[in-house]
């Protein structure tokens, strides 16, 4: 959709007039009694300029009301103006304006650091010094002589035209050259920004991935350290076992170091943090290895849950008590759901390049099951609970769910009370963290929104054709784009970092562990309650995040002119009334989208 910007010659109050005028015509238009020597074309153009002057579009003052009789006679107006005292001999306001444009262009060239061929000589310089052509020809003439002035103007036009077309074989107008140069510069910048954005997106994904892998290795290290401590506390510690555990800890430390190093290379790219090819290869090896280990662990967990499910199925077949059948069925359903989740996660880690990426919800579920199963294994080892017997030969194929008819059971008063208390505990565990993280998000939001507004205004300026000339005329006081972008990216990173803390609450191992501990007091029904509470918390988080996104989008809107905002508001009203029931023609898009994200 974006249109290629074109440059209007004249900027009026918010409107654009894409008129292209040759500088020689502008000169002839201000030159008083030059009409005898003008060419047909320049005469035609001069009429356009005169019309614009009459309409006030050129920024010139309109003739007073009592001169109404002379309005139709452009020559008379020009003569009157020619008689007015000039600021500088031979230099009119329009010539000065052209000079300012050129100076602005020159200063932009200097700032941009890009070498460009000067498209044209500065018209002011040409007029005052004859820099581009024959200087002596102008100096010889007396400015007071009318006839000489006519000749001088004709000479000036000739000098400018010759000089102008000498460096301009395409015979483009001044504005066309200006436009081409600006277009090229703007397009280059847009490409640069697009590239940066693209890189930024990939970077965020990579950083997230590395952080998750590191988190996994840290969790693994912690479990090994616990084992080591336990071993050391035994009466007769096994030296070989201790050595092996220490080796694993050292290996985990190395992996954490490599993942950290790779993370730094992405998040704070500079010379110090840059990785060598060898570093990269090692970091990738660590990543691939960790992925395989995660997949392997998930598979083990899956088989573990499947064993438990088979055990429950055997139990339900033998059971005759209706209330117990209902309870067992509930456990079977939960086990099947967990098998499905673990398998999905396992497949992803086995083939991360080809499998659909895991959603946060899936991740959360897999993580939750992992922690719970590991806790149950610990409890089993301590002898606190008895788990289902492990199968003799673990199957490699994925177990298929077996459906058993559900039978409902009325809850007792006591179980209801326990459930209410547990829900309150779970809400408290997560609720406090959500509140804390929300506060951090709302604190960093205003600065980010401010930067969004600045950036949007800048983007709008780049797109808006009339703004190009206003920049040349020095009306823009905005910072250089690169500075704006850097500041924008900085505040965005800060804001997103806080937002990520909020998003990650439901996957926080410590919190989940704490909640699981509470839930396990009620056995499997407690775990079911935990699942339900997590869904409720997800809704709360979704609403907070939607509110955040809405604030960010509205910040873009606030940067637009009021007229634009009114149009948007009208369209929104109509859209609501239309009750189309879908996001325009979103279906084919969502179809594609779900392939990648669902």
């Amino acid at each position, binding site marked *: 959709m974006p249109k290629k910007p074109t440059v209007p010659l004249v900027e009026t109050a918010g409107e654009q007039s894409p008129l292209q005028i040759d500088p020689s015509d502008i000169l002839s238009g201000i030159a008083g009694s030059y009409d005898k020597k003008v060419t047909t074309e320049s005469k035609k153009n001069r009429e356009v300029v005169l019309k614009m002057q009459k309409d006030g579009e050129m920024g010139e003052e309109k003739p007073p009301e009592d001169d109404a009789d002379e309005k139709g006679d452009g020559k008379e107006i020009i003569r009157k103006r020619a008689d007015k005292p000039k600021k500088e001999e031979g230099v009119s306001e329009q010539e000065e304006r052209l000079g300012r444009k050129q100076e602005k262009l020159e200063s932009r060239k200097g700032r941009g650091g890009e070498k460009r061929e000067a498209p044209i000589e500065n018209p002011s310089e040409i007029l005052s010094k004859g820099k581009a052509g024959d200087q002596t020809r102008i100096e010889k003439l007396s400015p007071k002589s009318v006839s000489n002035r006519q000749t001088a103007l004709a000479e000036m036009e000739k000098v400018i035209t010759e000089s102008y077309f000498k460096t301009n074989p395409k015979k483009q107008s001044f504005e066309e050259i200006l436009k081409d140069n600006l277009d090229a510069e703007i397009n280059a910048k847009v490409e640069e920004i697009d590239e940066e954005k693209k890189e930024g997106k990939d970077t965020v994904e990579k950083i997230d991935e590395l952080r998750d892998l590191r988190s996994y290795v840290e969790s693994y290290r912690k479990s090994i350290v616990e084992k080591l401590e336990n071993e050391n506390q035994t009466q007769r510690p096994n030296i070989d076992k201790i050595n092996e555990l220490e080796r694993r800890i050292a290996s985990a430390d190395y992996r954490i170091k490599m993942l950290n190093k790779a993370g730094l290379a992405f998040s704070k790219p500079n010379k110090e943090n840059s990785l060598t090819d060898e570093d990269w290869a090692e970091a990738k090896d660590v990543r691939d290895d960790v992925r395989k280990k995660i997949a392997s662990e998930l598979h083990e967990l899956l088989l573990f849950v499947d064993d438990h499910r088979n055990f429950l199925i055997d139990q339900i077949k033998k059971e005759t008590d209706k209330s117990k059948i209902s309870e067992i069925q509930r456990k079977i359903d939960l086990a099947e759901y967990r098998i499905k989740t673990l398998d999905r996660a396992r497949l992803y880690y086995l083939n991360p390049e080809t499998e659909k990426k895991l959603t946060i919800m899936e991740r959360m579920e897999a993580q939750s099951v992992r922690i719970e199963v590991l806790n149950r294994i610990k409890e089993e080892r301590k002898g606190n609970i008895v788990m289902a017997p492990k199968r003799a030969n673990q199957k490699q194929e994925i177990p298929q769910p077996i459906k058993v008819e559900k039978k409902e059971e009325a809850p007792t008063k006591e179980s209801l009370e326990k459930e209410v208390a547990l829900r309150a505990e779970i809400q408290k565990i997560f609720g406090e963290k959500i509140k804390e993280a929300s506060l951090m998000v709302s604190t960093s939001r205003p600065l980010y929104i401010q930067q969004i507004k600045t950036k949007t205004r800048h983007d709008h300026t780049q797109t808006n054709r009339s703004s190009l000339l206003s920049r040349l005329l020095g009306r823009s006081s905005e910072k250089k784009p690169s500075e704006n972008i850097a500041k924008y990216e900085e505040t965005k990173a800060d804001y997103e970092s806080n*937002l990520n803390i909020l998003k990650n609450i439901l996957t926080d191992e410590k919190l989940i562990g704490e909640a699981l501990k509470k839930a396990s007091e009620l056995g499997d029904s407690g775990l079911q309650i935990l699942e339900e509470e997590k869904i409720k918390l997800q*809704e709360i988080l*979704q609403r907070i995040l*939607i509110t955040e996104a*809405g604030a960010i989008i509205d910040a873009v809107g606030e940067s637009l002119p009021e007229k634009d905002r009114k149009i948007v508001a009208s369209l929104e009203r109509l859209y609501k009334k239309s009750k189309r029931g879908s996001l325009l023609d979103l279906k084919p*898009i969502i179809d594609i989208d779900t392939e990648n994200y*669902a």
Partner: protein
Amino acid sequence: MPNNSSHLDLIAEAFGLSRLPKAVRDSLLEEIDAMVFRSVLFKIMIDFDAEDKNELHDVLESAGDDFSKPYAFLKEKVKNFDDLIKEEVEKVKKESLSLTQSFA
């Protein structure tokens, strides 16, 4: 707002809302729908020139309560309209609904 259940199911799935209770899901969908649409319109207004805006204004004036007219105008003027919507959906999802974002 939701009339077309298949569309909404797809959006809900894309935004990871499938597991939420229906009432909650519908409410969130409505908010997301309005948000994405607003974001698309802002983007269009940034890219439109004065002439396009004036035309759109005129179309709105004459449309009354008929959304199909401005909608047809937008579809005609914005050549890659579907791409733009897709882009904005992505943006909104990335900025807000990252509970469904991939993590590894």
